[in-house]
């Protein structure tokens, strides 16, 4: 669109890059012992040697399983045109056998320019798929089945997996089944008859190492020299970026990021947020951008992780400090005083080791507290009930079970979802918190 701010153009380029799931994994395609090479070997052998294969790609979410698989498929399609047919299924969408088979038939029809009938029955579809497998095998055409969220396909009778793998036992067929799952025990979920037909090739995907991380950062953030962007800007930007990347403070930020979650996806989201905060006037990525990104992206730490977080606080730059306050604590600081009273009362009841607590017992405690300390904040029961419901809505407390729907909220047992430590922190952070609450909480502990 004509002459534009180069910084904005640069930002769009970076955003496009980061939002493309496959981009950052391209640097792993050269090294010989990478998952990319292994997977490519497995799949290409099936194409060239006309054999059946199956593999599982396992690893935590956001480690690039699907992205690498897609890169491999793309390469294979490029290397062996017209001999590969890819069928993609997702456990979230097609975990039902009937639905999955229909989708396979639909995709096979599209690939082979056939007319797909929506009305076809399960039997028709399964016969069609088996016939197609044989035909493709005879024509030396490989069918690649990609089963994303593989663990979800193992729910139920596993008829789909069985019929697919069973069809692959015949000599005539030529197919690859690749399962992708974030459950490391995905192969244990298979039935015996399915497991025995499955080749136990498993590829484990792990979060990036420190060296990889550094490579990825440069790979993702450096602007290309040969592009439509003005070369002076690109040179200045890249120089500034390399400076920032080698900064010790930046390394601290990356450390605290990886302490939470070291997966590719988390890193990508962090980089995306940093690029979003880039100042379009100067057009450079500064340390401040990364700091704000960290504080905005930081996941909510689990309760046990909180101590770890507080240790990090002391070492990490001050800007990151805000991030370490969990959303729960931040949320709490904005609770009204009455809600704090209820939380403290609940905490006190917990301290008394009562088995179950519900609104009525909280109210009793609240009344007791009021009687013994003569607090100024004493509200009627229905106001308290509403505050109680607010807390439920904020998920600071939760109902213990979902049974007893016929009971009204007042009588259903509840549970505190924050630790007393967090409660302490929250009360301290809250400026206008009455001193009496601190005292009450201390007495409880």
């Amino acid at each position, binding site marked *: 669109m004509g002459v534009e701010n180069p910084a904005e153009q640069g930002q769009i380029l970076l955003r*496009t890059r980061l939002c493309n799931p496959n981009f950052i994994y391209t640097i792993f395609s050269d090294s010989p012992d990478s998952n990319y090479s292994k997977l490519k070997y497995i799949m290409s052998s099936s194409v060239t040697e006309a054999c059946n294969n199956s593999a599982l790609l396992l690893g935590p979410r956001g480690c690039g399983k699907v992205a690498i698989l897609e890169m491999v498929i793309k390469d294979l399609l490029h290397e062996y045109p017209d001999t590969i047919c890819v069928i993609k299924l997702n456990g979230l969408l097609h975990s039902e056998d009937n639905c999955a088979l229909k989708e396979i038939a639909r995709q096979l029809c599209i690939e082979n320019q056939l007319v797909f009938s929506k009305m076809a029955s399960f039997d028709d579809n399964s016969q069609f798929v088996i016939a197609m497998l044989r035909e493709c095998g005879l024509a030396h055409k490989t069918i690649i089945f990609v089963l994303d969220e593989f663990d979800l396909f193992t729910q139920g009778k596993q008829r789909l997996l069985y019929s697919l793998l069973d069809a692959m036992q015949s000599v005539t067929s030529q197919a690859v089944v690749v399962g992708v799952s974030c459950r490391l025990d995905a192969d244990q979920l298979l039935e015996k008859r399915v497991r025995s037909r499955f080749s136990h090739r498993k590829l484990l995907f792990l979060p990036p190492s420190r060296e990889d991380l550094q490579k990825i950062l440069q790979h993702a953030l450096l602007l290309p020299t040969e592009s439509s962007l003005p070369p002076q800007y690109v040179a200045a930007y890249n120089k500034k970026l390399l400076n920032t990347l080698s900064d010790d403070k930046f390394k601290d930020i990356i450390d605290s990021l990886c302490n939470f979650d070291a997966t590719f996806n988390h890193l990508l989201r962090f980089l995306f947020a940093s690029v979003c905060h880039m100042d379009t006037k100067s057009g450079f990525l500064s340390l401040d951008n990364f700091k704000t990104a960290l504080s905005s992206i930081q996941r909510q730490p689990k309760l046990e992780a909180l101590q770890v977080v507080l240790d990090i606080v002391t070492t990490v730059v001050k800007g990151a400090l805000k991030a370490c306050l969990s959303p729960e604590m931040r*949320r709490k600081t904005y609770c009204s005083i009455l809600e704090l009273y209820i939380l403290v009362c609940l905490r006190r009841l917990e301290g008394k080791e009562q088995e179950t607590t519900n609104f009525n017992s909280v109210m009793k405690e609240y009344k007791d507290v009021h009687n013994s300390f003569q607090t100024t904040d004493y509200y009627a029961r229905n106001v308290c009930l509403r505050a109680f419901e607010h807390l439920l809505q904020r998920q600071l407390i939760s109902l213990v079970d979902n049974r007893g729907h016929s009971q009204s909220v007042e009588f259903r047992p509840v549970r505190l979802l924050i630790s007393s430590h967090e409660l302490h922190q929250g009360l301290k952070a809250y400026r206008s918190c009455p001193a009496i609450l601190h005292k009450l909480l201390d007495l409880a502990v």
Partner: protein
Amino acid sequence: MGDEGNPQTPRRTTRASLSSTPNPKSSTGKLKSCNLLPLTIHDLAYGDESISFNDLISSLPGRRAQIIELLHLLGPLDSPMFPVFVYGGASTGKTSSILQTFKHLKRPFVYCSCITCYNPRILFESVLNQLLLHRRNESNRYSSTKRCERPSDFVNLLQEALHNVVDSLKGNVEKSSSKKSVGRARGKMVYLIFDNLELAREWDKSSNILPFLFKLYDILKMPEVGLIFLSNASPDTYYSDTGYVEPVPVYFPDYTEDELCQILMKNPKNPKLYSSFLGVVLRPFCRVTRRVDELLTAFSSLYQIYCEPLDDLGIVPNEDMKRKLFSHLQPHIGPSLNETFKVESRLSSEASANTNKWKGIAKKVGVSESSNEIDFHMSACAKYLLICAFLASRNPATLDASMFDSTGGSNNKKRKRFAGGSLLAFELLLLLMHQLVSLKNLYETVILPSWSSEKSKEKKEIAEQELLLKGPGTFPLERLLAIFQCIVSVSECLPDEEAQGDGGLEGESWTNGLLSDVLLELSSLCNANFISKGGSCPLEGANRYRSMVSEAMALKVAKSLKFPLAKYLYRGG
């Protein structure tokens, strides 16, 4: 917030005028009525003049940082984005901020709220309808373009629809590059906004709808699509079995006191007067709630009281006047703090019995009521049933015999006559059996423990505690009917009372009436949620009931019948 809705209630209009929430549904609704031109691709964005950045910021006080963050994440024109998850408490301006931002940016978007789209199918079809520029009207019998129930079908249809939209947007960009025109959607990105996502958690426990929505971006693999989720609940409350790819979070904190003041001061009729009013009430109310919607309802009635001494509402109050007004208002602040949530009833006294009944339910739920009168009509039979159910829920079953024998013993004969006249014989038998069993239990629970007073005191406390925790108990139908019989026979011997009761005229008919009439009344009480009907007990097989009425309410009903309820109530120990 996504609280756009019925503009008839006063609360909504006040809020709407405050934040001037742009509601895409209603704006397209207006379009519908005035011209029925087919929808074009530009109707996906706001049609009217876009608002400037300064207007955007000033229209939403206290949300500056959040809007800037949103704008950063949405990025410049045609830049792809990661899914964004906007969360924060109720009434913190999430929906308004997003929609106003899109009004500012004039980019095409699709908005769906999980409140109106209350199941996956409606959600899917709503998204597709908007993308396919389909308008449901009489000629197509208000049907959707595509019928789609499963996520798998949805993905296929959505991909198709999105490709079409993006293609036409691209063509549109090429065309409009030559001459710019107002009312055109900008850019070639389409944004899907899902509001009130927290409701989707409840849809179906086993369904994968939430992981699916969070993964939609990866499944679609279209950089031209931006996903925005809005939710009351924070991301940590969405964790599911194997997790999901997390979107970029944006947090909307509750408003501070100053921000609340700015919001409430947005367009009062007399700003000076209103600000002096806020100076008095805002601080105490902030200690109870910070939700704008709740504050507004509370303040609207208080402001009327505040203005009562004034003749001219346009007056600019001086210090003296302020003091006078404050002293006038002060006695009302305390009580109204305790009924912040009272729903003002603007029903006239001639309101139909039907609406009155609903008010009764609202009261039962917890709206405080100062008067001792019950302001809804109910037949005497229903009132007695209500009291019986209350007693059956609160009293232990073992005490029924002793409770009702002390007074009911004298007119045993009468009861028998009466019972024989209207009840089936087996129920009488049941009543007798019940009494036999309960005599034994009475001995165990009441007479035995009273031997040692200390022990009984302890037990009393435990029993009280238990009562607080357990809430009203359940009871079988037979017990309710037995108590009903006893109570009716007792009240029958007080002749003056019947005539005064609400159901005085029908009195004769229902006391001598059939059991089926009583059962009919019971079922209507169940329908009105005064009595809840629980699942059946696996051993006995019959349905169990539970009274949902608060004690205050039950006492009020009893008072209207002149029935001495307190005498029959067991208070533990």
